[in-house]
């Protein structure tokens, strides 16, 4: 029978404008992040004012959040990579500790 393994990792939640999604995703790929999830149609408020969740005819000006779980040693490099970007663009990164559960095959099968 398979079991759920539990690993300690770090979660990064990166909120950026839709237009910038490609850049962030590319960076995560190059950093070796295993995968990511993208949430669309975020609305919110920040130093730049209010963002509406969904615009019918504009995908670039809405906010998205990219979520990824990475081993701790990748966090530093990823944040280092994002620094020049956030110097110019709006957005934020939340880093937190998480436990990730995945299915693994037991060796006896």
């Amino acid at each position, binding site marked *: 029978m398979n079991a759920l393994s539990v690993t300690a990792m770090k979660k990064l939640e990166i909120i950026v404008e839709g237009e910038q999604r490609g850049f962030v995703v590319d960076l995560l790929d190059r950093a070796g992040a295993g995968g990511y999830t993208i949430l669309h149609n975020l609305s919110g408020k920040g130093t730049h*004012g209010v963002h*509406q969740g969904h615009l019918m005819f504009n995908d670039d000006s809405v906010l998205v959040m990219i979520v990824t779980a990475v081993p701790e040693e990748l966090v530093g490099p990823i944040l280092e990579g994002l620094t020049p970007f956030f110097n110019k663009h709006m957005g934020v990164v939340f880093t937190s500790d998480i436990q990730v559960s995945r299915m693994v095959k037991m060796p006896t099968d």
Partner: protein
Amino acid sequence: MKMLDTALIGVRWTLYDLVDRLYGARINATLNELQIKGCMDFLDEGQSVWRMPGRRQGMFRAWSHIAKRNRRLRLHGLDVGGILAQVDQPEAAIHLVMTGLQIPERLWMDYFALELSKLHGWAGFVRWRAQARDYYWQDRNPADLVDFIAIRLVLSLPLIEEAAKQHQRDFRYPAWVRCLEERPHECLLRHELHSGAILPDYAHRVEVALDSGDAARIKTLSQDYEREKTAREAATRALRLQELCGRAGIPRAELAGKRSAALRQMIDAVYAFRSQEGFVWMQALERTYARALLAKLAEHRARTADPSVQPVSNEPRRDGSEIQALFCIDVRSERLRRRLEQLGHYETYGVAGFFGVPVNFIELGKGHEAALCPAIVTPNNVALEMPHRHGGHEHDGHSLFHLATEVVHDLKSTVLAPYITVEAVGLLFGFDMVGKTLAPAAYNSWRKTLDNGKQPTRLMIDKIPRDDALDLIATLQEEMVVRAVDRHFGVKREAVTTGMIRELREIALGNTCGRSDFARRFDLDAAAETLFLTSLRLEYGLNPEQAKIQLEHLARIGFRIELQALLVGNLLKTIGLVEGFAKIVLVVGHGSSSQNNPYESALDCGACGGDRGLVNARIFAAMANRREVREQLAERGIRIPEETWFIPALHDTTTDETSLYDIEQLPPGRLTQLTRIQEDLSAAGRLCAQERCAELEEIGVDSPETAASRVKRHALDWTQVRPEWGLSKNASFIIGSRNLTRALDLEGRAFLHSYDHLHDPSGELLVGILSGPLIVAQWINLEHYFSAVDNDVYGSGSKIYHNVVGRFGVMTGNVGDLRTGLPAQTVLKGERPYHQPMRLITLIEAPLSCVEGALAKVFKVRELVQNGWVRLLVLDPVTDRVSVFEHGRWSAQPWPPGPNHRTRADRRTGADRPVGAEAARRRRKRAATLEASP
């Protein structure tokens, strides 16, 4: 005179820029040439025959591979081998060179920007390519800016090093800083000498002093030079100021008698003002236009409100005889709408030319999807074009399944392998056709048969029920088996039973196993059978994964009825057409036609991603005609009567001809109306052509008919560098009811979007207009602006010198930067600008609070307005006040403008452009004559 400032190193000058400027070298030019040659080969899209090995690893690595053994580079004195041996990735190369040149990291980004600006056309292309989704050539041969800069830096290093050896100096960053700080006079003189700005009578002395290397001598000469040059410039300026004041009514003697303080103030004022002068002129141009526009609107309002004035027949409608028409907001629609309305029984609306339906479209015979919508939107739905053989009038009878199986059967007679079916039904069956060259000759001749007899087609816009989709895939798979059997064993269809085909299919998919009937019947041994099945799976795509992909592709086709109703409803509410529908509603997209014109798509519809708007028009009309859609709309309060019919049309902006489409779907009794409409459109089109001929400076055009044939010639003439003026002279964007602008001659300079705030209580529809169509219009406006003010840098220069490069861009000459922007012929008339460069004057007819609310919701539009990229005016219909957003806030604008609002321009040209009811009546009579004549 200013000394060279060390703070500008790396910000305004690269290190080799300094070598060029101070030592007369040509490193920048050499670097440009080498880089262009290196990139051109890599980025080519089919034109060049030579193939670069290793392209898939990215541009830097592929280039690196070649550069290490490139004899040409070594002849230039460049040995990049040493550097390239140490780095594998472009980032590492960048790091190596930047640290090697000892440039501090805080300057790196500025340095990169500077390097990129040297070839900003190529850099811009690479940048675009790097983020283009599903761009075939980028997938195959990836390139991005990191590669680009890495190549440039690696090339620059040995060039700088060689120059350093030659002049026996250190040309790295810290040395340059020291040089500018410790030997500023020498640097100044060197700069003057090599920049071409040196005072001619000093040139020789400077050369000699520099050669001597004597620091004291250099310093003395430099100070002398400085004094002299400044003095001469001061004298020149003083003379000009005297002339200026003289022309301003202050003669020289009087000027000389003024107090020093007053003179100082005058000098400072003049030079302070000069630095802003361009901006002031531009504002003057804008304000003149805006005031004239408001005056026209006020005049129009007063006239239409006045009951004593005889109503012009182009007023809102009488029953039954009127026709409604939806046009794109494009400025070229304005003319046609005006002319059509003048005929008396037309009511027109403006909306972005994709008609609110973003769609990925697969044209018949093409193997790829085209996104027909503004570039900032990603469509979620696919629409297909299928050949339509049945002459019947049912419009929702044929499912994709039915038609696809027809197509599949039709293709039985062709020789080409399974790939044919892919082409016929588009990309959805998952085969990657692009770039493959299987049986190219036969393939091409088959393609031609598709294109030549341009057969009538249907647009498939409905969702395929899952069962139908599975059936379709099964049918296709069986067809594959039939072809495979024929190809591999020479066994024809007649010799095989349906059962055998089905069984082979099931086995290939892994649903059953065991020896097949077919193998038994045709005596195949196990090995041969296995080989065949493997081929079925791999070559012919008969495997579960492929089937899943095919199902997913099929699922993307079409729009659910609910979505269709939503899109149609939103559009109708936005433009304010929710009741009082005419019996015929034209949906008019636009496109242009020209020959030999790489810029052709610049003349097409921006809202459709640079394509013609016909497909969107057809899709919208098809949706709006659907019974099920109308049922859903009725539930939401929009009742479209049964006899109302939407007809798609295409307005050719080069010839001003408009053609109707999909008329075979009309109920028979309505066809007679169409003849009349077609004639109206032709008549209106000819009048438009006549207007445009004046601007195109066509001579000898004395009638609308002559005009029409003249512009038609433009469309067909492959030497014509200006088939039409396109969007040049665009000036404003008016969002509001047509009542505001009807019959006004806006000279084809206004984007017009219909909008009724009464149907938009939440403000959502206004947000839609601002965040979508307005952005597209703003892009168009600024593209024209910058191409007009500096065509050499922001525009692409004269078309005559254009060289199409790699099928993706143009260059002037043989080796140069890629040109961006619009060609000279589009925005200039000879030396002078034809397009009047100013920011888009945007007028919204809605309550001010609504507009403020909408702006609060969209950051991008807010940014554009606050930073002054568009000029926003609001005409509040409730308070009847006009506000303008300026200097960060709203301020009131006089409205209606006072009695002296008519500018000098109006007074002078007033006689030439009658706008009143009188002229409209005259034109109406004329139109009647046209109709009556045979």
